[in-house]
């Protein structure tokens, strides 16, 4: 076993420090003053949780930081972590009108962080008024972003909310599974505490179906929300996968979040299989924790990788290597991994990756990190709620606006529903399900945070992204395809 800590505590605190430090007050002011305060702002439309972005930015500009944080957290209870991990370049910042003026978009993520840090660092309670209890009870299975989003909204609507979380801490992947240099567990746990401060009870170390029966929950609560996320990493299905030194990406990232940084074991030559955002998190952190070489192995090309462009840039800057059009066929080693047998691949006529005959080669590695994406928890879901309808991909089927499943009382949101998207999508879906639950139980559902135009937001993309989530690149692609136009610039 050649996995061992390779870096001093001091070096780790530097190499794993946050990529984007907090704004200094003057930086924040200058950036906030740049915002035009658009009406029907595209950034709001591109935010799945529909944060009134120009609204909170103007508050930063007037030094009303608590008010700014309240605007953010009212729409998105995980506003502090989303400020750090959201793919802002394809969401709010990607929609900023400044781009059209050939200027840099407003740094919405960093401003959001500035405002939310202010209230967390100074222990300011932004929600001092508790909702009047409405006598209803809701149980939320899983303590990740979807459940926290759902819990905050339900608590504000007067529900008694209990979250059941299997792990020792709530927060889900925010607490255990995001690159340390983007989001530290402390930020996630502070948000968990914020949710608790709304009156939500979080029972950790409880696995539903094992420590408590699902039937009991269904009987005791008026509504149940499934925020169970996804399961283990997909298998490589190649010989030698069980050798020592082969770990799952989320397991590796979990070590980083639960041990002192200088005690996280890492190989000298690390291979990461896969090229999604989690693969990037794994390869960069392996490098930052002292690996001499850290290499992404991906069976398709650079242009096909699912990781965001800016994530790819981080990995390149960190000096990580990329083996595109390459796939592992065997893990070699005597007990512990010593090398990978690899083949070259190419895209065939249908665009699928196929092996190039006779291209086999071997490369030395002492650690292999699997990052092929997480499995759906089909069997677990079927065990918990036998009648639950799932689609072919193993996602829970539900109503798009309310998150209600085919099973009475049961609502869903987050990765279990969408198959694995961003934190902000999970929060939004949790919030939607909360409103769905409330409506289903006969409550009044409140409107979005922004004032409508005279013409209203009845159709098309206006108002808040919570009602009509808009994702810039996808929308643009669809639009120009439909118009059969080539985009200028």
């Amino acid at each position, binding site marked *: 076993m050649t996995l061992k800590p390779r870096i001093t505590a001091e070096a780790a605190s530097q190499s794993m420090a946050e990529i984007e430090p907090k704004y200094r007050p003057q930086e924040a002011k200058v950036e906030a003053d740049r915002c*035009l305060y658009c009406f*029907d702002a595209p950034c709001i439309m591109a935010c799945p949780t529909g944060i009134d972005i120009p609204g909170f930015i103007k508050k930063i500009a007037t030094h009303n930081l608590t008010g700014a944080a309240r605007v953010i957290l009212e729409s998105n209870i995980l506003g502090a972590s989303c400020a750090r991990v959201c793919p802002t370049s394809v969401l709010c910042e990607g929609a900023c009108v400044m781009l*059209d003026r050939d200027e840099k978009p407003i740094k919405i993520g960093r401003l959001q962080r500035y405002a939310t840090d202010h209230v967390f660092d100074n222990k300011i309670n932004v929600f001092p008024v508790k909702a009047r209890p409405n006598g209803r009870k809701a149980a939320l299975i899983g303590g990740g972003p979807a459940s926290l989003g759902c819990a905050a909204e339900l608590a504000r609507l007067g529900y008694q909310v209990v979250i059941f979380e299997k792990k020792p801490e709530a927060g889900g992947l925010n607490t255990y599974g995001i690159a340390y240099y983007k989001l530290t567990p402390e930020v996630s746990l502070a948000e968990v505490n914020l949710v608790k401060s709304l009156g939500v009870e979080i029972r950790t170390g409880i696995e539903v179906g094992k420590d408590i029966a699902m039937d009991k929950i269904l009987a005791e609560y008026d509504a149940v929300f499934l925020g169970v996320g996804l399961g283990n990493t997909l298998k490589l299905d190649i010989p030698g996968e069980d050798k020592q030194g082969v770990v799952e990406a989320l397991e590796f990232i979990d070590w980083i979040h639960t041990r002192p940084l200088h005690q996280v074991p890492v190989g000298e030559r690390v291979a990461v299989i896969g090229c999604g955002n989690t693969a990037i998190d794994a390869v960069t952190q392996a490098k930052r924790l002292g690996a001499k070489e850290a290499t992404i192995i991906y069976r398709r090309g650079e242009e096909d990788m699912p990781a965001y462009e800016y994530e790819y840039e981080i990995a390149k800057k960190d000096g990580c290597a990329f083996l595109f059009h390459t796939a592992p066929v065997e893990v070699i080693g005597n007990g512990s991994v010593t090398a990978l047998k690899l083949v070259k691949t190419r895209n065939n006529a249908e665009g699928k990756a196929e092996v190039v005959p006779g291209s086999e080669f071997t490369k030395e590695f002492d650690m292999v990190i699997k990052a092929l994406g997480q499995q759906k928890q089909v069997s677990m879901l079927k065990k918990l709620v036998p009648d639950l309808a799932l689609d072919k991909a193993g996602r829970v089927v539900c109503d798009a606006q309310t998150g209600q499943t085919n099973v009475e009382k049961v609502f869903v949101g987050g990765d279990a529903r969408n198959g694995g998207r961003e934190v902000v999508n999970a929060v939004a879906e949790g919030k939607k399900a909360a409103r769905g639950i409330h409506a289903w139980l006969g409550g009044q559902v409140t409107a979005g945070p922004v004032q409508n135009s005279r*013409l209203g937001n009845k159709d098309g993309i206006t108002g808040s992204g919570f009602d009509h989530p808009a994702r810039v690149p996808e929308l643009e692609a669809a639009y120009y395809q439909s118009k059969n136009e080539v985009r200028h610039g």
Partner: protein
Amino acid sequence: MADLSVNLAGIKSPNPFWVASAPPANTAYQCHRAFEAGWGGVVWKTIGDPIVNVSSRYSSLDIGGNRMVGFNNIELISDRSPETNFREIAECKKRWPNHAVIASLMTDTRENWHDYMKRSVDCGADGVELNFGCPHGMCERGMGSAVGQNPDVIEAIVGWVMEVAEIPVIVKLTPNITDITRPARAAKRAGADAISLINTINSITQVNLDNFCPEPYVQGYSTHGGYCGPAVKPIALNMLQACASDPQVGLPISGIGGIGNWKDAAEFIALGATSVQVCTAIMHYGFRIVEDMIDGLNDYLDKKGMASVNELRGRAVKSVDKWETLNLNYKRIADINYDKCIGCNLCYIACEDGAHQAIDLVDEGGRGLGPGRLPGKKIPQINVEHCVGCNLCSLVCPVENCITMVDVETKKPHMSWKEYQTKLAAGEIERIPAHP
């Protein structure tokens, strides 16, 4: 290269850019630095019985990222002795014979005015400026704006000064008055050679919300200060035009108030100023700002084919007239250039909530989209029928030349309010119906 030299009532300077009577014009050292940088004249910090100042003295109005959009002070006239000031003026004149050095004066009795006037002549000053403008401190002692607010007192004091005046006399006016032409006419009646305006405006720039004391702070208290800087330019231009267009004033004018660059200066000159005086911009950036003022004005005059800055003077004065003379039948409306529109919809909400509800949000309808906009997002469209041509949308639009105002042919003859009233009275036309 156009000729920038000016002659204000006999005071000659190589260009129209003068340092105003203020902290930048306090010493010979500063005067030398100003002339080295290229300034054409210096109006000395007001000379009088030496005063004692307080600490602190200045405050500002900052907007967004812009510092000192407005600026105020509670500093009094020169705290140096008249002997020192007149000696230093003499030094400056010796070294800079072709530049204008003007002694700014403030005192009380006839004897004292005579004394200061004579000493100004003796030290070689090119002219004097009588400070009837300071709205803080000195006015409490019956000087400064206390004089400037009373045309009779102006007339009397200017009369005293003119009894011994051997060099041109400029009267500096306070804007803290309802009708600026009254004191200007008084100065004229008393024989002044020129006027300068505006001095600073009574102000409180900001209140400290922790100690509830405005700035500038003097041990828990503050006082009304004199306001200046870019934010006062519109007020200054208005008063300048009022004096320049008044036949009963008919004096050369040195324009003051918020001038920071050649464009500001050109606007003042176009509204009738012969020279312009600058203070706040120097206090912000130093004397070097004159370099672009000279260069920019020169370039502008060349482009316009004007051989001398004097050709520019007063060109805009006649374009300002009474409201009742404006053509009611003229119409212009807003026009959005969709190639430039960035989709901020500020025009929409400004018109909707703040004006005349004449912009609709409609489907983009093939007008094309820029990179920052969401496909399918509604775009603003001018409602031609409802648009009153108020300019608001074009003012809020953050993109240059995106919303422009275009003339609409109304096919109606020129008719001002005055003409309308006449025609109505004569029964020639129907009353224009009220707006629904």
